[in-house]
């Protein structure tokens, strides 16, 4: 009886604690990435974005995605990867119109991905 109770409490704590930590980590990570890519988006709109800026944004994403692999499906990470590569290449080519469009999609993905893991009716169903 005591063993059963303890096992329930421990497992529940692992899930609740893990859930809170996961939520906090995802929010912080995607908020940070959103700041980086908002800058890219605005500078692309103003046709001022540099290759160095795009490369450092790409590095920021690649640094974070190593840990994100443990929490979100790899297919979603791959999707962001593709958009990030395209964005960097458009900036390199000086095609700022396409670059800003790619940055916008990346920002949308950064907004949607953490929401996929929140506790809501649409995620439950």
């Amino acid at each position, binding site marked *: 009886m005591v063993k059963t*109770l303890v096992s329930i409490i421990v497992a529940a704590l692992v899930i609740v604690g893990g859930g809170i930590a*996961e*939520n906090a980590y995802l929010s912080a990570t995607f908020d940070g990435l959103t700041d980086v890519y908002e800058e890219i988006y605005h500078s692309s709109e103003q046709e001022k974005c540099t290759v160095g800026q795009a490369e450092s944004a790409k590095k920021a994403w690649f640094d974070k995605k190593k840990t994100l692999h*443990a929490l979100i499906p790899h297919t979603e990470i791959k999707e962001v990867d593709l958009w990030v590569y395209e964005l960097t290449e458009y900036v390199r080519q000086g095609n700022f119109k396409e670059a800003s469009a790619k940055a916008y999609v990346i920002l949308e993905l950064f907004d949607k991905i953490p929401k996929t893991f929140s506790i809501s009716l649409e995620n439950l169903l």
Partner: protein
Amino acid sequence: MSIIFFRAAVLLVTLIIVMRLMGKRQIGEMQPFEFIITLLIAELACIPMSDVSIPLIYGVVSVLAVFIMHQLLTLLSMKSDLVRHAACGKPSVVINKNGVDIAELKRNNMGVDDLIESLRGTGNYSLDSVYYAIYESNGKLTVLKDEEKENKYLPLLLVEEGKLKKNNFELSGLNDGFLKEVMAKNGVKTLKQIDVMTVDGTGKVYFQKAKEKFTTFKTELPGEISW
């Protein structure tokens, strides 16, 4: 992580309800809850194991969710009969002193055919060779045997809930005349008035009118018929 826990919990509860509604024939040797856990754990562990696009943590959380639900239900079952009956079901007495309890069989989505099959599994071939037969909550049939009754002959089920079992009837080689004679002797005009009727190769008849206590009697089989 939390959403996976909730999703796993919702599906687990749904499976328990569905398994309970399906009755005892769907499970074997296990409590419904144990059966579901066995089904789920294997699948939950298998998917993230083989699909590299799914983070391993998804599998771990789902398995933990099943574990928590199992422990919770075990705890609640120990504390409350109501929870135990709701999750695991309760034993059904399908043969009592009056004979076969058709209503109880139906409650478990079973027929007399299934009962006779399970009865054979316990080494009893005739319906009157047991005092009581109980379908336990794990789907297993246990019997309180009538030690005086012999199990030497194989009875064939001829009528089940007012319907003639044509295959068995043809197999037995009996004719309509025999059936009518037995019915007339027992004051029955139509098959619908019979719940269960079996006949063995020596002519011993197990006869149960609808909502009445069963009777057994010997009768002459026509011609050289015997099995």
